[in-house]
C-alpha cells in the first residue's frame, strides 16, 4: 500500500458538493494510466480504460465527498449557525475540530439548552470571532465545514480518519485502476463521484453518461463488532471485503453477488456477506439508470461510520482491491 498517496486522499478537503481538492489529488495519481479522463458538469471525475472490444463496460464508483455542516448564518456574538449536508449525527460533531474549504478552522458546540437528542439546528461553530460581521466576513454563508482531516494508525493494520467514508474506497479504486493492463476484455470506467452523501446525486448523472453494462460501487459498510453493538450486523473488521446482498436503496443483482463471491473463493480472497438494513451506495443509482443496469457493491467494513473516528482494517482494504480486480477481469454474462 502506498501510504503517502493514501494519506493525501484521506486528508484532502472535500465536503459534499465541494470535491475539487480531492479530484485534483486523484487526477494527479491517475497520471497516464487512463485512456481518457474527464470531469463532468457535476464534478464527477471519470477515467476510462478501454477493453479489447469483446467484453462489457463496467462502471466502478467511489465517492469523493463526505458529510458536512453548512453555514447558514451567524449570531451577534460571532458563532456560526449551520445545517447538515448529508446524514450528520449532530451529537458526534460536538467538541470536534472542523475545517472550512477556505482554510478557516473552528470547533463545534451545542446550545446549552438543547435537548438530549441533538439536531444540526442545535449546533454552532466557534471560529474565534467576536461579532456577526467578523464571523461572516471570514466564513460567508454557504461555506462547508468538515471534521478536520487527520489520520491515526492504530496497531499494525488499522487506520482511523474522518473521511474514511469513502476516501478509503477512492484509494482502493485508484489501486485497482492503475494496475489494469492493456488489452483486457472488459472496458473499465472508474468514476470518482460527487454528492453521494446527499442522495447519490453524482452517480445518478454519471451512470447516464457512462452507460455501463455492469455497475459496482466501492464503499464502506457498518459493522457489528464493537461493545454493545445493536442490530445484529454480521460484518466485522479484519474478516475481508464485504459483498453486499442488500441495503435500504438496493437489492444487489443476484448474478453480480454470485460472481463476486465466486471470484473471492477462486482467488482465495477473504470475503464476507453483507446485509445492511440502512444506508445506500452509488450502485443503487447505477442500477436504476437508463433501462436498468446489473449492479452490486464491494464494501470495506468500517467502525464508527459518519464520525471523525471512522476506522478500517488495511487487510480488508487489500481484500477489496483484490476482489474488485478479480471481478473486472471476469467474463460478464
Amino acid at each position, binding site marked *: 500500500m502506498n501510504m503517502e498517496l493514501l494519506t493525501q486522499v484521506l486528508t484532502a478537503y472535500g465536503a*459534499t*458538493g*465541494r470535491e475539487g481538492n480531492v479530484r485534483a489529488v486523484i487526477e494527479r495519481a491517475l497520471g497516464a494510466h487512463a485512456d481518457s479522463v474527464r470531469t*463532468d*458538469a*457535476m*464534478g*464527477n471525475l471519470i477515467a476510462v480504460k478501454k477493453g479489447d472490444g469483446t467484453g462489457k463496460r463496467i462502471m466502478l464508483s467511489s465517492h469523493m465527498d463526505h458529510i458536512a455542516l*453548512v453555514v*447558514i*448564518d*451567524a*449570531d*451577534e456574538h460571532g458563532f456560526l*449557525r449551520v*445545517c447538515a*449536508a448529508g446524514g450528520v449525527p449532530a451529537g458526534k460533531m460536538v467538541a470536534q475540530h472542523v475545517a472550512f474549504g477556505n482554510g478557516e478552522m473552528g470547533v463545534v458546540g451545542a446550545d446549552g439548552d438543547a435537548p438530549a437528542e441533538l439536531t444540526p439546528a442545535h449546533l454552532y461553530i466557534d471560529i474565534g470571532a467576536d461579532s456577526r460581521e467578523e464571523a461572516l466576513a471570514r466564513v460567508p*454563508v*454557504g461555506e462547508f465545514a468538515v471534521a478536520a482531516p487527520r489520520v491515526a494508525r492504530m496497531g499494525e493494520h488499522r487506520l482511523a480518519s474522518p473521511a474514511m467514508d469513502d476516501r478509503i474506497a477512492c484509494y482502493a479504486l485508484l489501486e485497482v485502476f492503475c494496475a489494469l493492463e492493456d488489452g483486457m476484455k472488459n472496458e473499465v470506467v472508474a468514476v470518482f463521484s460527487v*454528492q453521494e452523501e*446527499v*442522495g447519490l*446525486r*453524482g452517480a*445518478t*448523472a*454519471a451512470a*447516464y*453518461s457512462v452507460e455501463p453494462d455492469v455497475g459496482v460501487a466501492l464503499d464502506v459498510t457498518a459493522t457489528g463488532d464493537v461493545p454493545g453493538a445493536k442490530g445484529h450486523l454480521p460484518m466485522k473488521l479484519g474478516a475481508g471485503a464485504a459483498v453486499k446482498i442488500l441495503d435500504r436503496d438496493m437489492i444487489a443483482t443476484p448474478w453480480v453477488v454470485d460472481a463476486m463471491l465466486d471470484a473471492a473463493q477462486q482467488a482465495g480472497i477473504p470475503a464476507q456477506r453483507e446485509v445492511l438494513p440502512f444506508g445506500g451506495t452509488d450502485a443503487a443509482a447505477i442500477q436504476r439508470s437508463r433501462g436498468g443496469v446489473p449492479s452490486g457493491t464491494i464494501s470495506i467494513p468500517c467502525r464508527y461510520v459518519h464520525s471523525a473516528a471512522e476506522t478500517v482494517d488495511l487487510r480488508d482494504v487489500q481484500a477489496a482491491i483484490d476482489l474488485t480486480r478479480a471481478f473486472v477481469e471476469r467474463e460478464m454474462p
Partner: protein
Amino acid sequence: MLLSELTALRGVSGCEDEVRAALRKEAERILGGRGRVFTDTIGNLYACRDAREPGKKRAMVCAHMDEVGFIIRFATEDGLLRFDCVGGVDPRVIASRRVLVGENRVPGVIGFKAVHLMSDEEMKKAPDYSALSIDIGVSTKEEAERLCPPGSYATFDTAFMEMGDGFVMSKALDDRVGCFVLLRVLSESDYPGELCCVFTVQEEVGSRGARVAARRIQPDIALILEGTTANDMGDVPVEKQVARCGGGAVISLMDRSAIMDAQLRALAKQTAARRGIPAQDKRAVAGGTDAGPIHTSCGGVPSLVMAVPCRYIHFPASLCRLSDIDALGALTLALLEEVGKQ
C-alpha cells in the same frame, strides 16, 4: 399577464390545466412565431427560442405551475367531503377556510368541531386530516358526490390584494411569482443561446414534471425560479430567519434536493452586487425544488435556484413584496446576460 390573474388560476399538482392554458396563450403571444410553444405528456409547458449565436449554452429556466391544495376522497352519508392534502399543507392552518371544489368551483368551508364542543384531549391536539371535512352545504352522499366526485381538487378561495407598503397577498404565490417572472424573462431576455422556458407540473409532490422536462431539454445550465419561505416575522431570531421580505431576490445555497452549482451561485452574487440588484442569501436549507431532478439529469446540469421570499408559504394566504419580484426578474435577466458572454 397580471400577477393577480396568474394567482387566481387554479392548478393543484396533477391538475394544472387552467394555468397551462393561460400561460400557453401568453407565451404564444410573447414569442409571436419566433419560437416553439408545446407541451409534453405529463403536462409541462415549454416556450423555446432557438440560439442566435453558435457555441452558446442551452439554458433552461423554469418555474412550477402547480400549487398545494386538496383532493376529495369521498363523501360521508351526511354529505360532508373527506379529503387529503396534495403537497405539504399544515392541517393546523386550514380549519374554517373557504375553498372552491372541482371544475365548477363549488364553494365550501373546511369544517371542524367548535371549541366549546371539544374534549380536553381534543383541545390540546391540532386537528389532522382525519378530523377535518369540507362542508358544501348538502345533506346526502349522492348529492355531494354528484357536485364533487371523488378525485376533484379543491383550492383555497383567497382574493388577491395589494396591501401595506408594497406587499401583495394571495394564494399560490409559490410558484406563480416564478411563472410571472419567467414570462418576463421570455419576453425581455436577449440570451444569445437556445433559451427554453419551462413551466413545470407536480413540483409540490416531488418535482415530477421537472424530471421529465430536464431529460427532454438536456440543458447545459438551469435556473429555477421559486417562491420561497421568508420566516422574517415577529420574534424569530435573526439566525432562524430564512430570508427577508424586501431584501431582494433570494439566492439559494442548497436545499434538501440539490447543492447549488458553486460557480453559478458566485456569478449570481457578483452580478447582483455589480449591477445593484437587491439580493440575499437563503439562510436555510428546508424543502426540495425542481433543481433536484434537473441537476442530476443526463450527465449533470449546473443549476441554481433563485426565489422571491414569501411569508406564510403553503398557507391559505401568502404575502410577498412587489419589489422582490422585480429584483428576481432583474437578476435572472442579468445572470442570463452574463452566462451568454461565456
